[in-house]
């Protein structure tokens, strides 16, 4: 019974996020502009250039990368909500409520994951429109979505950790701005790992994005379920991010 109660309080956090999105879907729309440009402009021009000999359909190749780029940005920015709530009284109230503190982190991570993963639909649809060849099997598409939510929960955790440690909007936005592009470039989002210089190749191997993108390529492009290894890495990443975030959450109101 207690477990059920816990679960429903976690889901309430996610529900809160969905309700906010319903009242104000503006973010989903504006956030969709950038990935559409990546796919439609960057993708189709690069496809003509045929820069990477092993890849014959570049637009399809970068689709998972663009999904991740777009949703990771949103997940990493999610911590700003915590900073706003720190200035308002919501966090104080939650921290003084019977709700276990771990639930605040997990609940918000689910919420952030859901908000971020809205990009999945937008990018897949726009990629399909410009001719990307995507596996139509709904099982693959749903599995891909769940993996994306898991990844975004990890990045939301990192974002909440940053928010707890940095505490002000300015410092937070500075750090987030500094890490998002390097994260994107040091991954297999835009180019295959084997064309990278060594330094970036090593960086990409410790980058969670690389593993998610690899899973998505297998699921929604090559119709393969050989994803266990990457899934373990991602689960470890998300768990670690959440634990660190739980440990530091109380700092945000001090």
């Amino acid at each position, binding site marked *: 019974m207690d477990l059920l109660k816990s679960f429903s309080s976690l889901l309430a956090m996610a*529900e809160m996020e969905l309700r906010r999105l319903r*009242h104000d879907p503006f973010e989903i729309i504006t956030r969709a502009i950038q990935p559409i440009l990546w796919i439609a402009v960057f993708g189709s021009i690069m496809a003509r250039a045929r820069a990477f000999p092993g890849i014959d359909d570049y637009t399809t190749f970068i689709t998972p990368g663009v999904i991740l780029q777009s949703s990771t940005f949103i997940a990493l920015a999610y911590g700003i909500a915590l900073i706003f709530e720190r*200035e308002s009284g919501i966090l*104080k109230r939650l921290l003084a*409520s*019977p709700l276990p503190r771990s639930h605040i982190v997990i609940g918000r991570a689910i919420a952030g994951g859901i908000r971020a993963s809205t990009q999945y639909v937008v990018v897949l649809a726009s990629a399909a429109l410009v001719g990307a060849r995507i596996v139509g099997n709904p099982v693959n598409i749903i599995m891909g979505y769940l993996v994306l939510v898991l990844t975004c929960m990890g990045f939301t955790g990192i974002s909440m950790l940053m928010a707890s440690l940095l505490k002000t909007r300015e410092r937070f936005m500075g750090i987030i701005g500094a890490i998002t592009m390097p994260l994107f470039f040091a991954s297999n989002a835009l180019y295959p790992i084997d064309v990278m210089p060594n330094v970036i190749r090593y960086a990409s191997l410790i980058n969670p994005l690389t593993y998610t993108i690899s899973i998505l390529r297998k699921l929604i492009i090559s119709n393969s379920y050989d994803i266990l290894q990457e899934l373990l890495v991602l689960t470890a990443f998300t768990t670690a991010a959440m634990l660190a975030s739980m440990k530091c959450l109380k700092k945000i109101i001090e």
Partner: protein
Amino acid sequence: MKAIEVREVVKIYGHSFRALNRVSLDVEEGSVHALLGPNGAGKTTLIRIITTQLNPNEGSVKVFGHDTVKDSSKVRKMIGYVPQEISLWSDLSGYENMLLYAKIYGIPKDVRNKKIEELMDFMELSEVAGKLVRDYSGGMVRRLEIAVALMTKPKILILDEPTIGLDPRARSLVWSKVSEFRKESGVTVFFATHYMDEADKYADSISLLNQGKLVAQGSPNDLKNLVGGDKVSIAFKEPVNKVSEVISAIPGVLAIDLRDNYLELTINDITTTLPIIIEKLYRNGFAIRELKVHEASLDEVFIKLTGRRISDEPGRIRDVVSMRRMIRRGG
């Protein structure tokens, strides 16, 4: 039983700033207790320690016998807390805020809706339940926040500056709702304020806090007697001699000072004593030309004890502006 026991609490921010310096106080179960002091006195710090958000550097706090550091989760189950800043999602409706908090607090599904409806109705918010909190007035926001705090049936309601930045009508509506709920449920209320009239009017006992130290504690009347109670000056139409004999027998008259046709009285509890004085004077044929009443205020008590005022007008205007900004900016 004591609802709150604060013992020798010290809270140090940074390396040396003592926000609280050996504060001790008791709150009786079922009473209304005010923590009164100017901005920066340490009221919010104490409330955050009581609500388990912060740990004290020294000393201890117990809520219904449970230590706020060692037994923090038990303490959190007993309190209903409204922070000074807005604690609602302003981009959601009032009903949605209640619903989400009900779910977060784990209130069972079968009673959830009934409870939300009851509380919103009680707080006179049913008509605006579907409106976004962003469009609420300051008073509605506060009432909704208190409704949220009451959902878990707390044994003690802890309010940090519950009426800050509200106009007088909104303030009195907030208080009448809190009082009404208290009468029905017997909940203990602990609130921080820098409005001395609120502490005077609504609290059974008051702790005066200044620069992290407790300067006095007692009922509003006890505290006002520290500055000599209420004063009444009476001017008679002609010099009077025997008036002292008539008046000194009245209980509640503390001091008499007579000069020609001017009489100055210090009395305890003006609302009941003054009518008796006037009646006696009238019956004995003393003709009153002028009568002036000076009620002792907690502000005077505070000035006497600390040399500073509790509240200043510029502070209030700043509070209003920042409250409005908070509502606009949203939770």
